[in-house]
Every structure is written in C-alpha cells, then in structure tokens.
C-alpha cells in the first residue's frame, strides 16, 4: 500500500493525478476516460462549459449592474479565475411514501388564542430527480448550490465520447464514490428530501409515522462546470462561484459597506422597539401570553441578528 507509482493516461501517456480513491480520471490533455474500478464503469456525460473570457465578462457585467457594487467597480481587481468539472450523480428515483403526522395551529377565537392539533395523514408517490457529488466532501465553494440547481432543472448534457474535448476542456475533479455507494447515498438523500417536503407542504410540526420506499430508475454521471473567481476590493479577497454552462451566479461574497452597517444598526434599534411595544402590551392585556412571547422572541432575535451583522465582514448571496 505504501508504494506509489506514476499513473499514465491509456491514450496519450500524460501523467494523471491519481489518488487512492480515484474511480476514474479524465486526462486533462486528451479527455480520455481512464477507469480504475471496472465494476463502477458507467456512461459519462458532460455539461459543456463556457470559456474563461465569457465567465470573466459575466462577472464584470454583474458587478456593473449590482446596485451596491457598481459604485466601487473601478476599485475591483480579479486575482484568480479557475474552472473545474465536478463529477455529479444525477438520478431519477421512484419514491412512494406513507405518512401520518400532526399539525399544531394557533387560532384566535372570540379574542382568545388557542393552540389546536390536527391529525393528518397521506400517501405520496412521485418520480423525483436527486443529485449528489461523486466525491467524499462537498468542499468547493458554490458546489452545494450547483448540485441543487442541477437537480431542479438538469441542463443539456452530451456523451463524453461525442464531444470535442479540446473545445471545452477544464480540469476534472476525481470521482471517489462508486456506483454502489452512490445508490445508497441517493436513496438516503431522497428519503430526507421527501420527509422535508411532506413536512413543509402539510405544515406538520411532527411525524407520527413516515416511511419511504425509493427505487433508483436511472442514474447518470455528469461532469458539471463550476467556476470560481476571486476578486480584490481594498485589501480583502472575495469569491464568486459561477455555473459554467449558463453563467448563473451560484454563490457570491461581497464586502459590507459603511452605509449598510448603519442601516443594520437602525434596523436593529427599530426591531428592539417593536419588541418592547409587544412586551408592554403583554403586561397590559395579560392574555394570549403564548402569542406575545413568540412575537417578542422573534423581534428580539431579529434585532440581535442585525446587530451582529453590523460587524460582519462579508455578505453572502446564494442562488435560489
């Protein structure tokens, strides 16, 4: 196990960046797929990426249009741009679920608030799309958002053997998860997603019973392009993740300006006042205590989070 040898591409003999868990490696020079785990062999599809120039243009376009950033656009400087293809398993899963739960509702009747519990139950079956990275760690900035975007609306993808690799080539991150492991992970994720969806759609506060049978109908390995631009403003460095096929901004970090801090401070003061108002009302009317307590906590937590934001260093925006 301790021996390490140089692994070369089967097609062009270029050296490959082999790691102990690599399942396949796509040669960055010729695009040839080198398999290391025969039983995990599957068809690979590529979501072609735009080129670096188009990515950089999209970045400047956004900065010039953004209401906060356009004022400082001349002070921005790109320090690094890189793109990678991230291997992602996209899968169609048949799910059928049986559930039974409780909804708790606060209702106001004759001027009095009351918490009522409603029992609900149902069946759910559907065909859903789920994707996971074919890697142990979702570590790349913006990858989480990319995965979500691909499961919501899978972009066009082409069989890797039918494309001209030279036109769209980028480094491909190694795949570390075999098909078997991916299947169990996809089923795990499908169960979790459906549980959340049922809970949300039916306003459930808790489940009495939830079961979910999931069957994978189809599974593809996609290479999805992810670009990261690092830019400099004053002395700080900020990152932006862009989806390479349609130039969507997946995740951006931006500096916090002084006037934004002042807004947050005032916001915090006003939210505190609202909380004080509610607290005083509660002491006056001495009824509907639960409602008042919840509303007060909401106001004060909002005020507290705004006050914390006053000293934050970056603003993070995510693709929705």
């Amino acid at each position, binding site marked *: *196990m*301790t021996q390490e040898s140089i692994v070369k591409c089967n097609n062009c003999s270029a050296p490959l960046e082999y790691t102990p868990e690599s399942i396949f490696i796509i040669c960055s020079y010729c695009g040839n797929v080198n398999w290391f785990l025969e039983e995990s062999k599957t068809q690979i599809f590529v979501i072609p990426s735009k080129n670096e120039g188009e990515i950089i243009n999209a970045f400047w376009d956004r900065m010039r249009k953004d209401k906060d950033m356009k004022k400082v656009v001349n002070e921005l400087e790109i320090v690094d741009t890189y793109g990678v293809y991230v291997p992602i398993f996209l899968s169609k899963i048949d799910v059928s679920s049986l559930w039974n739960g409780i909804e708790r509702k606060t209702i106001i009747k004759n001027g009095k608030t009351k918490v009522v519990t409603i029992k609900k139950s149902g069946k759910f079956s559907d065909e859903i799309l789920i994707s996971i990275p074919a890697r142990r760690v979702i570590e790349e900035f913006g990858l989480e958002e990319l995965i979500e975007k691909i499961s919501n609306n899978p972009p066009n993808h082409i069989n890797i053997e039918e494309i001209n690799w030279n036109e769209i080539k980028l480094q491909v991150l190694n795949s570390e998860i075999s098909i078997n492991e991916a299947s169990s992970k996809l089923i795990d994720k499908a169960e979790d997603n459906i549980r959340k969806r049922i809970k949300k759609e039916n306003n459930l506060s808790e489940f009495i019973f939830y079961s979910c049978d999931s069957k994978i109908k189809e599974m593809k390995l996609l290479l999805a392009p992810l670009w990261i631009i690092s830019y400099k403003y004053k002395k700080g460095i900020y990152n932006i993740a862009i989806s390479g096929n349609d130039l969507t901004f997946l995740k951006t970090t931006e500096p916090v300006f002084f006037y934004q801090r002042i807004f947050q401070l005032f916001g915090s*003061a006003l939210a*505190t*006042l609202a909380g004080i108002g509610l*607290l005083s009302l509660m002491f006056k009317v001495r009824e509907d205590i639960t409602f008042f307590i919840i509303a007060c906590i909401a106001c004060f937590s909002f005020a*507290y989070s705004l006050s914390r934001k006053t000293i934050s*260093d970056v603003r993070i925006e995510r693709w929705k």
Partner: protein
Amino acid sequence: MEQAKCPNCGANFNVLENILFTTCPYCGYTFNLKTLQEWVHYFFPIYINYNSAWIKLRSFISRRYGVPYDFNESSYIKNVMLHYIPLHVFHVEAEATCQSDMGKAVYHKILDIAIPAYSGFWFDSILNSHKFSIRGKIFFKPTLLEKGKYYPPNIQSDYAKNIAQNIANSLIMKEANESCKGYSQISKMDVKYIGLIHYPIWEIYYIYRNEIYKNLIDGTNGKVMFVEYPLSREARSFLLSSSLFLILFCSLGGLIIGSLIISSILGLIFGFISSIIVSSPLLSTAFSLKIRGYEEISKKDSIIPSEEIMDLFKELSIFKIKTPIVFDI
C-alpha cells in the same frame, strides 16, 4: 526511546515510548508496534505552502471589520509551524427500523467521519469542530513530510471507531425518532475503517505593534481555522458609540412606549435590558483585546455532517486522554 524493527525492510530505528503506530523512516511502511500489522496510512500533501498560508491569512484578516489600516504594512511573522495531525477516518452505513401501528419503516444514514487521533494541542477543540477535507489524499511517504512535525496517534483506532459508531447511532436514532413515534431500533451498523490520515495544519504567529497573535490554517485547502487580530481605535469607537446609541434610543423609546401602554418605569426597564442584550455583540467586540474568528463554511462542506456531532464530542470529552508525544522525522 525504544528500538523498532521495520517488518517490511528490516531497518532498525528508534521510536518514542507509549506510541501505538509508527512509520518506518526508510521505506514508509506504517505498522502497529505490538502486532507488527500494516496500517492503511494516507497523507495529505500541503497544497498551501508557507507563503500562500500567510497571504491567505492576511487577506482574510484585512476584510474583517475594524482591522487597522496599517495592518498589512505593520504585521510580520514571528513563528510558523507545520503540524501533521493524525485522523482516523471511517465510512459508516447505518439503518434504523421503526415498528408502529401503521407498519414498518426503515431509515438510512451514510456518512464519512474523521476523528482526530491525537490529543494534546491547545487547539484540540478547534480540531474537533473542524471540517476536514478528504480530497486529494495520497499514500503516506515519510519523505513527503518536508519540515513538518509528525504526530503519531495516541488515540486507538478502536476507541475512535466507538466514537464514530456513537455519532452514527445518535444521528440515525434522531432521524428515526423524528419520523416515527413507534418502537425504533438500529437494524444495521457498518463502520468501516478507511485508514489513518496525516493532515497538514499551519500554526502561524505574527506580531502587530509588539503584540503576538496566533492563527491556524488548513494546509490542504487554505481554510482559516482560527485567527486573532487587532481592532483599530476607529472601529472601537464606532462600536462603542453604536452600542451607546442602541441603549439610549431603546431606553428612551421604551420610556415613551411604556408611558403610552403600561407605565414609563416598566417601559424604561424593558428598553434598557433589551438594548443591552441586542448590543452585546458590539460591546463584546469593542472590549476585546484581540478579536477571534474563523472562516465560516457551509454546513454540508463537512465529512462530519452536523453540529450535533460537536456537541457529542464535548459530551464524550475524548480529548483528555494522554500526554502528548511529539517528534520530528
């Protein structure tokens, strides 16, 4: 010191006492000193060198709120150490079954868990909550360690396996209990040992105006694990005046609201107390000598899946076991 003989190449070399595993400095074979069995051993090369770590640290600090304007010009490195920290890594597949009036349901959980295999750092607690990446590890070779400090594990893999199992147990049972009110029990628990990984971490000390600040950077991906930095006088006064504004504004507001609704004294008290709580993040920063922070990464970035695990770590308090043993190779 004890003598050890490598079962792979036959070389003799010295090892410190009380360690569990060692790596032959000649051929890189890692083995258990008692059983002489080979141990799967990986290693993360440093992708972030000394220079990039310092640049990354400075740019991270520079964008934090309230850093003095002359920070980049007036700060310089005092001391840098590269630690190779051992981790036991496990792959866990767990399943829980719940039996209720409505039928039977099965829940699954699949996760990779890294447990620090060494205790004795001042930053043990940071390691516990750090999200280690497993990307790009390669087979261990002692020549690759360069000038780093290599720490042999002083926490047994079986012990770490227990912790990994406890973590998986609590996560799958939590999922089962949230999904089903019937009788739940664990129906499958496969904990597979992936291996021992040595992971690089930079410990950097810098000086700014005669004051020393300590910092930690992940050597594989450059994530800032821990920073300390100074706060400028301007920022301190902004924070203090903001807090004062919040307290006065809210107390006065409380007084007026109180006099309209209930009583002015009660309103004033509500206003004063709530504004102190709301302005506490500003006040605590304004009064700290050194500001501390770390780079926030998304929850899913981790091979340790959630914060609950960190709580578990605290409960189990695994990092109070042995005195540290450190040696250079």
